[in-house]
């Protein structure tokens, strides 16, 4: 029995041999690692904390990319799980005085349970595409209403203040990560580790199954895969990652307000993934960091401008960039242009050669 289980698990996670297609991610990941180590020496602590908050959003984008980009499940309420994680963490630390590590577990548990219940009832019923998207949006709206009106737990409109930063006690050694530098390393390490793990998972046989479901669910089912179960598992994993982002957000900023459930943030998540390129893992993270920094820049001029700009960007992206900005395709296009240019230079000779016939 154990042997069989081991065989199965080995089959699922077995990796293909490294090839040239792995190069972009490996290089990007190494650059990210370099940036994580170098950035604290290059920028001021305040700027570092701004980038850190943006990077937390990058984790959210990664979790949504896993769901929408890899498995093609569109939801409009992914921030429900971000909010649940953040509120779970905040309530556990502030109201119950738990240590941050166990509070993170509570936050993950909240989001995971809701995702599992909602996902089970919807995905197993065959609810897909538009329907899944709109029902998830309704879940988000109701979560927002609950967060605003359930004052005794969530603190109403003001939210929960004074959330402690990250710290861990491990076998007598305590590790304090609440300083700007410490939290930067913590957040960057979590993002890099998650990116690496999701990349490995998507590279393995499991990723192939997800791709099959995303391309044609009927056919994948005919091949003998329990597609609803796979989608449910991915939905829960993605929700857990979003909740982890929520916990980090709550711990880093120290406050949680009902804003986390706002449809605006949910829109931004979709925009990040759409612009960064669905299913590229790295692209959405970069897009999330860039857009969050841009948003802070613009909001400092005018708070009304950003949502309008966001809507316009979103509309333009859907109409004209259905596949996002793809770096790889951009490189291919550049190569094309280069070839065309060199070919034009070579043309006169070719014509002369042709004329000789």
């Amino acid at each position, binding site marked *: 029995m154990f042997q069989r289980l081991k065989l199965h698990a080995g089959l699922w996670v077995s990796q293909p041999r490294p090839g040239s297609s792995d190069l972009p991610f490996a290089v990007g990941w190494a650059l990210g690692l370099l940036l994580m180590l170098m950035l604290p020496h290059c920028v001021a602590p305040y700027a570092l904390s701004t980038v850190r908050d943006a990077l937390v959003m990058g984790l959210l984008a990664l979790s949504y990319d896993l769901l929408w980009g890899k498995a093609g499940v569109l939801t409009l309420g992914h921030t429900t799980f971000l909010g649940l994680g953040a509120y779970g963490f905040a309530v556990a630390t502030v109201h119950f005085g738990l240590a941050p590590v166990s509070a993170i577990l509570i936050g993950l548990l909240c989001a995971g349970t809701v995702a599992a219940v909602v996902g089970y009832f919807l995905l197993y019923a065959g*609810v897909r595409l*538009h329907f899944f*998207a709109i029902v998830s949006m309704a879940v988000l*709206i109701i979560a927002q209403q609950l967060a605003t009106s359930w004052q005794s737990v969530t603190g109403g409109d003001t939210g929960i203040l004074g959330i402690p930063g990250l710290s861990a006690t491990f076998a007598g050694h305590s590790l304090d990560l609440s300083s700007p530098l410490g939290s930067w390393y913590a957040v960057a390490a979590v993002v890099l580790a998650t990116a690496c793990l999701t990349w490995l998972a998507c590279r393995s046989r499991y990723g192939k199954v997800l791709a099959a479901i995303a391309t044609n669910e009927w056919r994948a089912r005919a091949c003998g895969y329990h597609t609803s179960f796979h989608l449910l598992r991915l939905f829960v994993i993605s929700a857990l990652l979003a909740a982890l982002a929520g916990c980090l957000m709550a711990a880093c900023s120290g406050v949680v307000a009902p804003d986390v459930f706002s449809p*605006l943030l949910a829109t931004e998540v979709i925009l990040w993934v*759409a612009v960064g390129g669905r299913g590229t893992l790295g692209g959405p993270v970069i897009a999330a960091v860039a857009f969050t920094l841009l948003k802070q820049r613009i909001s400092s001029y005018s708070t009304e401008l950003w*949502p309008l700009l966001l809507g316009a960007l*979103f509309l333009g992206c*859907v109409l004209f960039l259905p596949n996002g900005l793809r770096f790889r395709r951009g490189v291919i296009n550049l190569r094309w242009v280069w070839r065309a240019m060199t070919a034009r230079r070579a043309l006169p000779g070719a014509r002369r050669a042709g004329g000789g016939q």
Partner: protein
Amino acid sequence: MWLEQGRNLDWQTMTIIFNILSYVSILALVALGLAIVFGMMDIVNLAHAEWVTIGAYTLAVAQSLGGRDAFWVALVVAPAVGAALGWVLECSVIRLLYKRPLDTLLATYAVSLILQKALELVFGTQPMLVYAPFNGAVTAFGATYPAYRIFMIGVAVAVTAGCWLVFSHTGFGTQLRAVIQHPAMAEAVGIDTRHLNRMAFAAGAALASLAGVLVAPMVSVESHLGVYYLGKAFFVIVLGGIGSIAGSLVGSAVIGTAETLFSYRVDPSLASALVLILSIVVIRFRPQGLIPGFSAAHQLLGKR
């Protein structure tokens, strides 16, 4: 004394029934347009909620210009404005996305965001001033109930009945049903589906704007007024069945009744959450909706 108590109870029940009716009628008006557009074009119009808001704002503008009695003008003008704007949206954005139905969802989402913020920029974030056209109460079936609400229920019932008549008893309605049932076949027998889609889209927008005018005197008119109804309207069409008027009516009856009854016992937001959970559970066991529409392709998997 027994008689007194009985009458008292009767009065309470009638009030509850009137409350349910007024909520259901608004929900049905919002959901009707959404369901028909969804059934015909396979498009989830997330900007539908904004047309409710546009209707309410039209009323507010009309009343600020012409005083209280401008309500009657707005009752006619707002659907016209809504239909015109819906027409513009169809021509400018949705027309480009007929081949990519899932992207229309995102595009209309963006449009709803832009409209909401544009309304805030033009009119400010504070609630707009709106008055009911008449005050007073009417005694009907042993219950005293605000006259305006009864008027609202009457208008909603009349409009819904009109829609049903058009849908089931006219040539135009037959064409609409043909497009819902099988768009390619409808085109083959000579129905101009593009034109019909555009008409239906504008009509749905007009219905939503009408709902906005009717509901405005009872709620606070803000830029995110419609979002509240949109979430419910989606449940109505998912629960009721796609592309059938009867389905969306039954759906709004179920959702509206459940929510009104719940909100007598618990906090309104908790009532919404309970209704949500209830409908998700119902969807699990009846994914095709309570009254499935006449299209076999529109099961919950979407059209492929």
